[in-house]
C-alpha cells in the first residue's frame, strides 16, 4: 500500500502526516505536489493542514483549482481513500467532495487546544478500529473550523450517519460548552456518502505519539491501514 500526502503552496502539516504514516506506522508514503496531474499508484491520499494559497479569498477556495484536485476527485469517485485534515477538510468542502462549508470560528479567535472527540460511526475505513462512543483526545488549531450546512444538507448528513466525530466533553456528552467553534451539531468530522472520503478539523497528525500529549490520533491512520490491508 502507498500513502500520498499532498503539498499545496502554504500547506504546513505535510511533514507531520508523512512522519506519522512513514515512521510511526512504518508504511510507504510519498509527497504529491499540487501540480501533479495523476495520483496513480497511491491507495490513500492525505490533504494536510496549513494555509493553502494563504487562505486567500476563502480557506481552501483556490486550492480546489490546483491540477491535482481533478485527479483526486476521480480517485475518490473510484473509491480511493481521501483524508482531509483541517485545511484539507476545508479544501474538500470547497471542491465539493464533502458537503457543507467551514466558517470563521463563532468566537472569532484562532483556537489551539486539545479537544475530546466522540466517535459516532465506526463503519468507515477511518474509524474501523474504534468503538462507537469512544472518546479521543485530539488537538485543534484553526480559525475557521465552524462546520455549516443548510438544513436539508445537515439532515441528510445526520440521517445518513455521515457524522464521524463530534466535539464532546470529558464524559462524552455533546454540549455547547464542549463545542469550541460553533459547528452545527458539534460536528468535528464527516465522511461522504460512500464513506471513502473523510474530513476532520482536529489534528490526528499532532496526536500520534504520547510525547505529543496524546496518541489517540494514531487510531485514524491505523484504521486506514487496516482498511487497505483487508480490502
Amino acid at each position, binding site marked *: 500500500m502507498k500513502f500520498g500526502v499532498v503539498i499545496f503552496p502554504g500547506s504546513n502539516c505535510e511533514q507531520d502526516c508523512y512522519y506519522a504514516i512513514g515512521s510511526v506506522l512504518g508504511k510507504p508514503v510519498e509527497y504529491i505536489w499540487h501540480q501533479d496531474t495523476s495520483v496513480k499508484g497511491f491507495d490513500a491520499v492525505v490533504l494536510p493542514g496549513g494555509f493553502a494559497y494563504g487562505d486567500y*479569498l476563502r480557506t481552501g*477556495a483556490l486550492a480546489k*483549482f490546483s491540477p491535482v484536485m481533478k485527479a483526486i476527485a476521480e480517485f475518490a469517485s473510484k473509491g480511493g481513500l481521501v483524508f482531509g485534515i483541517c485545511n484539507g477538510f476545508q479544501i474538500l468542502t470547497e471542491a465539493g467532495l464533502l458537503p*457543507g462549508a467551514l466558517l*470563521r470560528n*463563532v468566537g472569532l479567535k484562532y483556537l489551539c487546544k486539545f479537544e475530546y472527540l466522540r466517535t459516532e460511526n465506526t463503519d468507515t475505513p477511518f474509524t474501523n478500529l474504534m468503538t462507537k462512543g469512544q472518546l479521543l483526545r485530539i488537538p485543534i488549531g484553526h480559525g475557521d473550523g465552524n462546520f455549516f450546512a443548510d438544513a436539508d*444538507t445537515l439532515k441528510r448528513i445526520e440521517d445518513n450517519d455521515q457524522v464521524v466525530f463530534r466535539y464532546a466533553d470529558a464524559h462524552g456528552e455533546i454540549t455547547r460548552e464542549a463545542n469550541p467553534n460553533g459547528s452545527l451539531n458539534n460536528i468535528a468530522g464527516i465522511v461522504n456518502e460512500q464513506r471513502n472520503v473523510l474530513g476532520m478539523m482536529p489534528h490526528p497528525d499532532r496526536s500520534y505519539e504520547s510525547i505529543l500529549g496524546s496518541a489517540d490520533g494514531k487510531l485514524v491512520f491505523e484504521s486506514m491501514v487496516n482498511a487497505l490491508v483487508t480490502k
Partner: protein
Amino acid sequence: MKATVIVTLKQTVLDPQGMTIQRSLASLGLTDISDVRQGKIFDIRLTEGSREQVERLAKEVLTNPVIEEYRIIWE
C-alpha cells in the same frame, strides 16, 4: 468595461464578524443600527463585453454557493 461583484453571506448563515461590528456601535451611540453583515467587493475590468465570464467568475470562484450569494453591478 468594468463590473463590481458584491459577495455576501446568505441570510441563513451566522455572521459573527458583522455581529461584532454591530455590538461595538453601541459605544459610539449609533443605537439605531440593528444589523450589520460583512461582505466582499471585487472590482473587475474586462477587455471586451463578456458578461458571461464575469458571471462564471462570480459563481465558480468568488463565492462559495453553500454560504454566499452575489450580485453584479455593470458599468
